Every structure is written in structure tokens, then in C-alpha cells.
């Protein structure tokens, strides 16, 4: 099972996890990213580079599947206008072994954050808006995978 999708629609994380569980591998790991309402944030808009996004995610999934023995991978990334509490991103992995499932899940979200062309713009209650800046910690998290 390989499933990846980029779009405005919400997703059902429980359904994705259930489908990964049904692959029979015995180990499923997942990460769900949610919009935080820090500092009076009222909304967030995600832009992306459509022609490149899908290709980058597809390449990341291929790399994860070469590196770990995975039975299934799901990557969903939302774009457009989101509010605090909304799901942004989902990564799920299934394997016969917990280490492979957990590591591949971490690898995918760390690389997704730093190599897929998405940009977040935050809007706050006082009317101000700002583009989120890339963080060195995210690059460091990615680089630990070698």
C-alpha cells in the first residue's frame, strides 16, 4: 500500500491507520501534525508548488521503502486555509518490525518538512500576518538520518 495525496480536503487518520494495520505486518507507526493556536493564531494558509510537491513526496516514499522493509506508507499533506485544531499532515508506516515502522515514519516527516515545497503563512487575532521562517532545528532533525 502506497498512498499519498496533497489537497485541501481533511483526512481520516483513524481510517488510514486501520488500513495500514490491515496489511498484517504487526507494526504500524503514525504522525499527525495539527495547527497550533499559539500567540493568538486564528488561521494558517499553506501554499505549495503543485508540479513539484507530488514528485518530491513520491521520491521520499521510494527512499524510505528502499531503506526500511515497509509493507505500507501513507503521506497526506493539506494545503489552503486551515484553523487551529485542524490536521495538516499525516505520515503512517506499516512493517513487520516496530523499529522499521517508527524510524521510517520519523524519516518521512523530517524530510517532508525540509524538502517538500510547502510554505505556511500565519494570521493572528490582531490582524497581522507572517510567513513562517524555516528553522535550523528542522534541518538538524533531517540531517540525523544521514
Amino acid at each position, binding site marked *: 500500500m502506497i498512498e499519498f495525496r496533497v489537497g485541501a480536503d481533511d483526512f481520516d487518520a483513524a481510517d488510514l491507520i486501520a488500513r495500514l494495520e490491515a496489511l498484517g505486518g504487526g507494526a504500524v507507526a503514525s504522525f499527525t*501534525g495539527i495547527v497550533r493556536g499559539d500567540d493568538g493564531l486564528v488561521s494558517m494558509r*499553506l*501554499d*505549495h*508548488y503543485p*508540479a*513539484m510537491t507530488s*514528485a518530491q513526496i513520491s521520491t521520499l516514499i521510494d527512499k524510505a521503502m528502499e531503506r526500511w522493509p515497509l509493507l505500507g506508507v501513507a503521506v497526506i*499533506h493539506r494545503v489552503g486555509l486551515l484553523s487551529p485544531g485542524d490536521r*495538516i*499532515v499525516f505520515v503512517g508506516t506499516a512493517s513487520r518490525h516496530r523499529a522499521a515502522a517508527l524510524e521510517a515514519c520519523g524519516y518521512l*516527516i523530517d524530510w*517532508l*518538512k*525540509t*524538502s*517538500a*515545497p*510547502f*510554505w*505556511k*503563512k500565519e494570521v493572528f487575532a490582531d490582524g497581522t500576518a507572517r*510567513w*513562517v*521562517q*524555516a528553522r535550523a532545528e*528542522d534541518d538538524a532533525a533531517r540531517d540525523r538520518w544521514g
Partner: protein
Amino acid sequence: METLNILYFAWVREAIGKDGEQIEHPGAETRIIDLIAMLKEKGAGYAEAFANPEKLRAAIDHAFVPLDCVLGHASELALFPPVTGG
């Protein structure tokens, strides 16, 4: 005439005021950083977007490349800030 499609994203797009444009291809040996210097002269929005090239990232035909990379015969160049998805 060979052309180059340029796409702008996030605050680069906002500063310039458009999401892209088609230009006459400046030549295979032109580096992205050289093209950015040329674009910077096109107006106030461009000057703002390209004031600090070290804050920019680029992709040629959908692959990330460093700014000192030459354009070659690419048909699409994208200029944008470091990505912030996930």
C-alpha cells in the same frame, strides 16, 4: 526564441505581485544568482523580493538546485523562500 518560465512562491510572490512570468531565456551559461541580479532591476517589488539572495531557494525543472547553478536549457525556474511544510 527560447523562453524561460519563472514561478514565484510565498513572500517572493507577494513582493513581486505575480505568481510567475515568461521571459526570454537569458542563456544556458547564466547562473540563477545572475538572473536574480537582473530581475532585481525590474522594479520596487523585485528589489524587495531579491534584496537578500541568501534567503532564497531555487528549483530548476522541479528539482532543488543551489543559486550558483547555471540555467542550462531549463524551461521552468522557481524562486522561493526555504520551505516550511509538515
